[in-house]
């Protein structure tokens, strides 16, 4: 992996390496399952045929190449981006509840997308992704700005409350505008996070932009480990904390903005996955970030697969699936970690 090869005493690389080796196999398995099963089950030979000898006239081929494949790839990508964003935010703010959907980042993004749909109908995919990123930055700015105005406003529970409430506000405004301009139907596609509208063009555009954030996060991972020990410690170790935080935020904005532009608001992935990963690989962000990425990718792709079968043959919005898993986990975190302590 890109995470550097040097070994030091506190590294416990056995588990993370195992995860990073096994993960690709699981991913391939999930991709295959995801392409094979759905409203119409496909046989393996048709899938192979569709990829090797794509025939535009063949309906099955078309389903596989234009719908199933982009969908599972989008799920993997978005899962990874959201999970890494959450990990970065948790390390940066030392807040165990930090995550893109709780801190207003996804709502900011969706808010800008709503405005874009009104003011710039027919905007290009690239414009949408850029605006989505700008919206992520906007949401994060309001939430953290407001939080830092308050004494104790950056403590985990309080920031989560501020983030949720501001998120409610932004999404209410979005709903208001959507109603006024009669685009509620279009907007609800974003809100209910319908992965199946993911298309290849959008995916190819999102990939490099999100990857910028991913690489930035990897480059920052060492600094994040130090930062997660606390600001004073980081400063005394000679770290320029402001620069690291600003860059980390850019990474989050790039990844979350891309994710929301691709599939809409999906909650809880960025909250849960970093915790599970931390449990598995420890607190070194050089391992935590790539491992969160692969685990998040697999998690979301599995949720997507589940969303097709929970209420077969109808699809369940994937946000519902992640909430069913996420809410109990969230409650568990509040219960065990309490209000004042840091991650």
């Amino acid at each position, binding site marked *: 992996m890109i995470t550097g090869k040097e070994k030091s005493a506190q590294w416990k690389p056995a588990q993370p390496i195992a995860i990073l080796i096994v993960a690709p196999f699981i991913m391939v398995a999930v991709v295959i399952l995801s392409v094979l099963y759905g409203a119409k089950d496909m046989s393996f030979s048709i899938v192979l045929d569709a990829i090797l000898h794509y025939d535009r006239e063949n309906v099955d081929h078309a389903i596989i190449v234009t719908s199933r494949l982009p969908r599972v790839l989008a799920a993997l990508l978005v899962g990874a981006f959201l999970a890494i964003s959450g990990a970065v935010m948790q390390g940066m703010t030392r807040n165990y*509840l930090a995550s893109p959907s709780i801190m207003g980042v996804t709502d900011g993004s969706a808010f800008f997308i709503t405005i874009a749909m009104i003011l710039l109908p027919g905007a290009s995919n690239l414009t949408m992704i850029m605006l989505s990123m700008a919206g992520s930055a906007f949401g994060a700015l309001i939430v953290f700005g*407001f939080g830092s*105005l*308050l*004494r*104790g406003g950056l403590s985990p*529970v*309080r920031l*989560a*409350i*501020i983030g*949720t*409430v*501001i998120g*409610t*506000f932004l999404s*209410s*405004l979005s*709903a*208001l505008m959507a*109603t*006024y301009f*009669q685009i509620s139907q279009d907007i609800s596609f974003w809100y*209910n996070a319908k992965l199946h509208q993911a298309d290849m063009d959008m995916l190819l555009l999102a990939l490099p932009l999100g990857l910028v954030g991913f690489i930035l996060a990897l480059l920052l991972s060492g600094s994040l480990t130090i930062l997660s020990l606390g600001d004073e410690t980081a400063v005394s170790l000679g770290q320029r904390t402001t620069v690291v935080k600003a860059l980390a935020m850019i990474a989050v904005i790039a990844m979350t903005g891309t994710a929301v532009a691709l599939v809409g608001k999906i*909650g809880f992935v960025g909250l849960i996955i970093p915790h599970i990963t931390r449990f598995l690989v420890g607190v070194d962000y050089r391992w935590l970030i790539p491992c969160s990425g692969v685990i998040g990718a697999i998690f979301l792709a599995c949720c997507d697969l589940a969303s097709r079968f*929970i*209420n077969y043959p*109808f699809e*369940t*919005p994937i*946000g*519902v699936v992640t*909430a*069913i898993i996420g*809410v*109990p986990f*969230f*409650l568990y975190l*509040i*219960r065990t970690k*309490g*209000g004042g302590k840091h991650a």
Partner: protein
Amino acid sequence: MRKKKRLFGTLSVFALLIVVTIYISLTNGAFDMTVGEVVGTLLGTNDDPRFELIIFDFRLPRIVIAALVGMGLGVAGTVIQGITRNGLADSGILGINAGAGAAIVIFMFFFQGQISDLGTMGIMLQPIFGLVGGLIAALTIYFFSFKGGRLDTERLLLTGIAIGSGFGALSLYLSLKMKSADFEMATVWISGSIYNANWIYILSMLPWLLILVPVVFQKAHLLDLFQLEEATVTSIGVKVEREKSILLLASIGIISSCVSVSGSISFIGLMAPHIARSLVGTRHRSIIPVSGAVGMLLVLIADFIAKTAFAPNEIPVGIVVSIIGVPYFLYLLVKRKQ
């Protein structure tokens, strides 16, 4: 004596404002009417069937529901803030609304397509289901936020938010499995709306309010005591836990009957008690009626905005309320810590 006067004065002003709002709401809309026409129709002297239809079938039930829901949420919000001793508590934020809503959606789900067959009976049953859901939500919140012998304010809020989002997901999931006609009705609970108001709904919530609001008012003085230290209250001889349970149960009952007709409207239970406290002081016997009046006025205004601002499109009233409510919540958050 002066306090009585002040309470009376405040209530009179609100009564006037409410009447004015109702008047504006009755006369304005897709079809404007004059005062004479409205009064004539209400008194039965003007028997133009168009006016009768608009007033009695569309505008009046909606206004009555907005008023009742606002009053209920205002009163229940005061009780919840009093019991939790938490000025940021609100049945919407705490997820009680979502719990009640989810239970009602479950009820609708099991009687899919039969709601109209069940008719009045079905609608009358909805608040009971709401009550069960609201109670489950309240118990869950209590279980998760009660730790080390005390109720932690912020953990309470965050737990409520989590519970609310869980029940919201459940409602969304079930509503998607419904037939499209029922789905229309179910989506109402997700953002809070009074658009399908009719007299049967009013009938279904009225008994709850008529019984439970007086119960709450009768026990209002206990809420004053709860603001003291627990040990002090017990030493006076009040069965604290018992009284708290009764008050909480009553307020969840009120909330459920409101949610069963209008869906989840947040922030009214947050704002109304604060406004009331700033107007008439700290005695709950004064706060409760004023809070009810404030809630009534707020929902009436919000519903008027919801139906006219972007006409012919309607905005769910819950969205209008949260656009006003969120800044207020943040303002309280800032003020509280200073």
